[in-house]
């Protein structure tokens, strides 16, 4: 390993650590779950209300979203990889779960923004 390699590694690790510090420094307990399919917001749920939702996407894409004890989690899905199911439950702002094959994303926020009235549709 040469000097330049070590410098590169240290720079990347320091930047990464700083980023992670920022991530944990700014995340807060979230109150709402937003669900998006193919770039469009399709649902908003309250994290305090336990519920199970089936998120449909595309032709026959299905992800089961479960909200329990203030945490949101994908419990099952029919996508090829199942990365979204493997993902741990989310409850802090900045956290998200994504299912790329279904172009589906679930993330949590601390409060709903006024300028997006669509978020109240559900």
């Amino acid at each position, binding site marked *: 390993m*040469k*000097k330049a*390699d070590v410098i*590169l590694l240290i720079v*990347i*690790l320091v930047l*990464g650590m700083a*980023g992670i510090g920022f991530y944990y420094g700014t995340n807060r307990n979230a109150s709402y779950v937003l669900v998006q399919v193919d770039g469009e917001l399709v649902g908003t749920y309250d994290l305090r209300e336990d519920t199970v939702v089936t998120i449909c996407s595309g032709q026959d894409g299905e992800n089961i979203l479960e909200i329990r004890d203030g945490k949101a989690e994908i419990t099952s899905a029919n996508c090829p990889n199942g990365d979204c199911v493997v993902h741990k439950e989310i409850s802090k702002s900045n956290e*998200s779960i994504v299912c790329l094959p279904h172009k589906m994303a679930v993330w949590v926020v601390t409060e709903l923004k006024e300028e997006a009235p669509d978020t109240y549709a559900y």
Partner: protein
Amino acid sequence: MTKNKKSKVKKIAEYACLLAFAMMVSYVEALLPFQLGIPGAKLGLANVAIVFALYLIGARGAFCINISRVILCGLLFGNMYSMLYSLAGAIFSLLIMIFLKKLPGFSMIGVSIAGGVMHNMGQLCIAVFITSVPVLLYYVPFLMIIGAVTGLLNGWLAKAVCDRVKKQIEK
């Protein structure tokens, strides 16, 4: 003429061996039940073969092998979606590796570290592009660190392979 022909045959054999090597490690990796906590993050062992190819046969050869590997492995073990996804990572990482290899002072390990990080960044870009969820950008620091660590391991492995094999091939 004969010499020229011979070197062409040698080149074909080398490319084929390297492609087989790259596909083999991809397959072995697919067999490993190994999760790094963040979904989708993995060791990327195939990069050992790509870094090795980059040093052995140069940028163009490594590019050909990498693209062929992604397409073939996608057809064999993945699907259209995973293929597109690895293609993005493969191209991002190879471009930075080719660039870094040209700069003085970097060894195989540094090149591999940069490749690992950029591979993850490339995939994240595609993910943000496909889903248009900006919160995903919070993954950047995690993916940087994972990319650097896996790149370090892969680079070290590639160097070990290179040291042993290069003498044999150059005979």
